[in-house]
């Protein structure tokens, strides 16, 4: 008989250097698979989290590479839910003003938030205690 140990929760302190996002993507993909998501869905979750990281680097840190943000990943295997929280240390912003561009308006940029909302079940921005923003994301594993 074997027992399976799952990584229930982990937090990464991620440098705001875009070169580090490949490592984040690999970690998220692994956890998504452990959560029970299939190949295609895991890929979409990776994309959504990557877009969230990109938004922090671009909009919260103005493209600066010398900052950090936290990525917390939590797996609830009983409920079949993957939860992620991204906490940055940039300015506090009004989440009601966050909106992607209209998709029919074809132009470069503005797709990240649309992708995040399309992929994840829950997307919630809030001000972080002490400054910065928190983005909470969750996705439920759907049984086949």
């Amino acid at each position, binding site marked *: 008989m074997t027992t399976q140990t799952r990584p229930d929760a982990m937090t990464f302190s991620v440098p705001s250097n*875009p070169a580090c996002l490949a490592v984040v993507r690999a970690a998220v993909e692994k956890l998504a698979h452990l959560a029970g998501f299939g190949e295609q869905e895991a890929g*979409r979750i990776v994309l959504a989290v990557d877009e969230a990281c990109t938004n922090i680097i671009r909009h919260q840190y103005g493209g600066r590479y010398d900052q950090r943000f936290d990525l917390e990943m939590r797996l609830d295997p009983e409920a079949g839910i993957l939860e992620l929280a991204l906490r940055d240390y940039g300015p506090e912003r009004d989440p009601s003003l966050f909106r992607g561009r209209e998709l029919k308006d*074809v132009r470069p940029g503005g*797709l990240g938030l649309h992708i995040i909302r399309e992929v994840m079940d829950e997307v919630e921005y809030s001000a972080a205690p002490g400054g910065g923003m928190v983005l909470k994301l969750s996705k439920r594993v759907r049984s086949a």
Partner: protein
Amino acid sequence: MLTINVEQRLEGAVVRLTGDVDLSASPQLRSYLKELVRAETPRIIADMGGVSYIDSSGVATLVECLQGVSRYGGRLRLAALNKRTLGVFEISRLDTVFSIHATVEEALRA
């Protein structure tokens, strides 16, 4: 990491991409494509067969190129996208905006 090779053929320029087209690599791709647009290359084929990942910054770079070539009546075609890469265009509702082909040869003939 992204590797970019540009091959000039009679039918057009084939831009072969290998690796991840993400926030760190998109500026590199942008400068290659910008050069081809500046030279008013009539037909640009982006060979995506070696692309393991693309994010919205990569997609935005291709949208910018598409708009650039359309200004002088040129063409940008995407070829050999894997399922995941194609999925990013689909989720962005751009799969109908780009001319997408199964192979580079098909894109060159189109």
